């Protein structure tokens, strides 16, 4: 798998000056078709719902909701830190979960962050990356948007360990899933507006930003520096 990383980094380094096809994105045609589908879905459903959500609910309440879902992620984030050998970070993630679930009233208050215990960003895709697996081809997933072969595989154990999926009755679970999706989309409203303004070709801009971002996350914000020439 290591060669994949090498190929991808090389591709990232020299972009695509010659070939028509970007080696990081061999399925660009299909990906773009899915992207167009996602855009339509977003335009007519996800974005309007997220906008209404922001309009109707006060920032304070939205922060509580965001905190609640973010708190449920902390055990998984901790697990991934352990899998990456970062035991100290993993322990603080678990401490965050315990503190926020109790003193923070089921996580709606992020008292751990206020107390200086920073939240981390880890998932299985990053763990695989840390283990030496390259990102593989870029993937545009229906509804879920940007991913790579590696990160898409990483979604699977994440789904199995998702506490919301265990919630019963089913109606409550479904409501929570929709609320979480709405919250996520609402958090991205500003970012998607900026993307809209900044990009010449949104598909390419989003793809390159995603790949850069994931690479940075795999190295916890300190990737080996690529000197731009």
């Amino acid at each position, binding site marked *: 798998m290591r060669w994949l990383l090498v190929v991808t980094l090389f591709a990232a380094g020299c972009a695509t000056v010659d070939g*028509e096809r970007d080696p990081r994105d061999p399925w660009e045609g299909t990906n773009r078709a899915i992207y167009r589908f996602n855009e339509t879905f977003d335009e007519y459903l996800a974005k309007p719902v997220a906008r209404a959500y922001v309009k109707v609910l006060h920032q304070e309440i939205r922060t509580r909701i965001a905190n609640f879902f973010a708190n449920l992620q902390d055990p998984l984030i901790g697990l991934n830190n352990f899998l990456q050998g970062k035991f100290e970070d993993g322990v603080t993630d678990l401490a965050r979960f315990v503190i926020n679930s109790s003193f923070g009233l089921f996580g709606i208050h992020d008292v751990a*962050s206020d107390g200086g215990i920073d939240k*981390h960003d880890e998932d299985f895709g990053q763990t695989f990356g840390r283990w030496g697996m390259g990102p593989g081809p870029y993937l545009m997933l229906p509804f879920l948007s940007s991913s790579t072969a590696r990160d898409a595989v990483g979604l699977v154990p994440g789904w199995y360990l998702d506490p919301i999926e265990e919630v019963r009755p089913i109606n409550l679970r479904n409501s929570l899933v929709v609320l979480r999706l709405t919250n996520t989309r609402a958090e991205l409203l500003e970012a998607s*507006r900026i993307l809209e303004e900044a990009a010449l070709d949104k598909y390419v801009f989003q793809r*390159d930003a995603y790949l850069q971002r994931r690479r*940075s996350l795999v190295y916890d914000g300190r990737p080996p520096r690529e000197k*731009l020439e």
Partner: protein
Amino acid sequence: MKKALAAIGFWFFVTPGLAQDTPPDTLVKNVTLEVVELITKEKGNRAKIVSVIEEKVLPHFNFTAMTALAMGQNWGKASPEQKKRLTEEFRTLLVRTYASALAAYSEQKFDFRPLRAKPTDTDVTVNVRVLQPGGQPVTLDYSMEKTANGWKVYDVMVGGVSLVANYRTEFANAVRTSGIDGLIKDLQTKNRALAEKK
């Protein structure tokens, strides 16, 4: 009127602090805090925000270097006139994007990280963390180079995403399909659309 006076007062007091030999981390800190202060006063006024950026932020950026980096190998193939126009258009686009990002600013706190560099270094990265309630901190990394006119920013990384690197593929694609003039035209079209939209 009071606002205007305060802004002018700010200008006089802060500007002398931005002398040529200001260390890069101090420069980033001063400019950031100053701009945030002004932006908070001009909440939502896009035209004002743009003028604040033009006046306070732009002098500390090296747009020619940024454009050259985003162009990669194609930079060498551009004529001096094309280089000038590319830089102008790219600059306009970046300022608009920046203004748009700043318009979304709402009372986040900044954590200015101590500079890890030797005094003799001429190319440094200044790290800032934006702390936001209920979320992970977002990192802002300014790549800066020492020039005769003080330290100049030549790239900004937001959450690990290099702004300059992110334009590379787009620029290369545009140049491949329609040449350097085609790219200039694309940028102009984009900028015009944005100017009309707001």
